[in-house]
């Protein structure tokens, strides 16, 4: 099949794919460029000179609300969501390898968590906290709200990973005298590590960018997406784009670093 010459279908599809990628990245690059807009420049092209004015503007607290604080909160929340998502998904994935009562119900509850509108969850958690008399906080109610979005992804990924997991390796380890903890630690864990890192990346980025679920659960202090959403209605300078550039570059760094770690782990396993 590989030796066939490329047909017209290939060229049409390749061209569409390039257009699709441009469609995905084009607008993002527009705000990337416009965030270097000169001091007197506006929200649209052309560029009126080049400057770092709007980036400097970003770090003056009065100009755009609390950028530093909301960034720190989103970062901390993302890391917490990541840690809990990895641990809970791994445990649940292990549980689903065996039969237990309620397994089916728990599985469908996880799927339901994906399809239930985010704003409904936001409202529900907000109302529960209000009735119980707890203040909603980004590290309690928002953490729980974000987990209802990241956990199903993590659980479904682990479910898929263990569905394809060959049992021979564990049997071999057990035959060689390893107990179940050793089997898990030295055989299963290294094999699923790249997937686990992937689950962690999902957990972090989904939480870092989550907006609807934070709406009624973040409490007094905004997370970064809430801050940005507030800005879309009342900020009319390119400082909005500077903020977009900074957060996007941060996301890209996180993604690249994670992919590098996954590659590194894969290489080391291939060698060792």
């Amino acid at each position: 099949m590989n030796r066939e010459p490329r047909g017209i279908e290939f060229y049409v599809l390749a061209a569409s794919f390039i257009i699709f990628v441009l469609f995905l990245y084009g607008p993002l690059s527009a705000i990337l460029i416009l965030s270097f807009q000169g001091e007197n420049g506006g929200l649209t092209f052309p560029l009126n000179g080049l400057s770092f004015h709007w980036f400097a503007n970003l770090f003056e607290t009065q100009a755009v609300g609390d950028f530093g604080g909301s960034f720190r909160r989103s970062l901390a929340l993302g890391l917490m969501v990541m840690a809990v998502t990895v641990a809970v998904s791994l445990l649940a994935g292990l549980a689903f390898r065996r039969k237990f009562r309620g397994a089916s119900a728990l599985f469908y509850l996880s799927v339901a968590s994906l399809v239930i509108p985010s704003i409904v969850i936001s409202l529900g958690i907000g109302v529960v906290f209000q009735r119980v008399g707890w203040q909603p906080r980004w590290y309690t109610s928002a953490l729980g709200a974000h987990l209802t979005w990241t956990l199903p992804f993590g659980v479904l990924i682990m479910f898929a990973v263990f569905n394809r997991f060959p049992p021979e390796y564990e049997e071999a380890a057990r035959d060689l005298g390893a107990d179940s903890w050793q089997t898990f630690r030295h055989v299963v864990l290294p094999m699923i590590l790249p997937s686990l890192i992937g689950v962690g990346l999902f957990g972090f980025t989904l939480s870092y960018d989550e907006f609807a679920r934070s709406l009624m659960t973040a409490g007094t202090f905004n997370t970064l997406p809430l801050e940005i959403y507030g800005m879309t209605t009342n900020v009319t300078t390119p400082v909005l784009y500077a903020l977009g550039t900074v957060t996007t570059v941060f996301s890209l760094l996180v993604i690249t670093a994670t992919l590098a770690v996954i590659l590194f782990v894969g290489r080391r396993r291939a060698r060792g």
Partner: protein
Amino acid sequence: MTLAMEQSVSTASAAVARSRPSALSRFAPYLQASPLALILGGFLLLPILMIAVVSFWDYDFAAMYPDFLLTNYTDTLGSWVTWKTCLNTLKFAAIVWALTLAIGFWMAYFLAFHVRTAAMQMALFLICTVPFLTSNIIRMISWIPVLGRNGLVNSTLVQLGIVPAPIEWLLYSDFAVVLAMVHLYTLFMVTPIFNTLMRIDRSLIEAARDAGASGWQVLWNVVIPLAKPGMAIGSIFVVTLVMADFSTVQVMSGGQSASVALMMKNQMSLLQYPAAAANAVVLLALVLLMVAGILRFVDIRKEL
């Protein structure tokens, strides 16, 4: 914090359970599943039940009062605004679904069947995935300098003399909402379809060719039927995301269009929680019906 504690406790107890192959190991799955069950129980089931309860309560400008009233439902279902908003939301869902399905299928098909090396496939797939991991709101506002009155598209069209004046409906319109949603959600279609296409046994396609099927016949009679589970999963994602969307509708329509979730959000900002809860129940029923409809075509457990 308490979650983290429960976490470490159950990790430890799960580890203990695993090391002893006695009666304890029968409980291991329960211990391992309990953190997930607790979190989903506390932050998903309980809040949904609470919404169902609160939707029957009374409220005024200051607080909610436990009660059993149907007025929240009669108010929302008796108002033509709700029906119009529902129809508008369904319209967005239908258009965005059709567009993302078409685009998603062809892009996944290209990646799975036309890109020849696995490394290239992975690289191109990652290129598609990366924007999905960045902020939705940033990706939304990035259309403003492109579509705006003095944006890239308009200024190019005016300069080329194609239109005499900037086109007004490019931004802050239903067109902009649909465009932004397709931009945001197509990935959710590409990924599951790509996944199912990659699992199609290539010998089936060769067999079809050997039996004399043309390229289109292979596509229509072999590839598309086998890709249906992926299409169904992608459809579930896209339909539920569009039905739940309020920020894209608000930002991209400039407040000129509405969705059920946006209606809820406005009631929430006015602290009319019982009214918002009634709308939440309506939205939830609508979404679950649509998902149940799609699930008739696929068994998710088998597809993982």
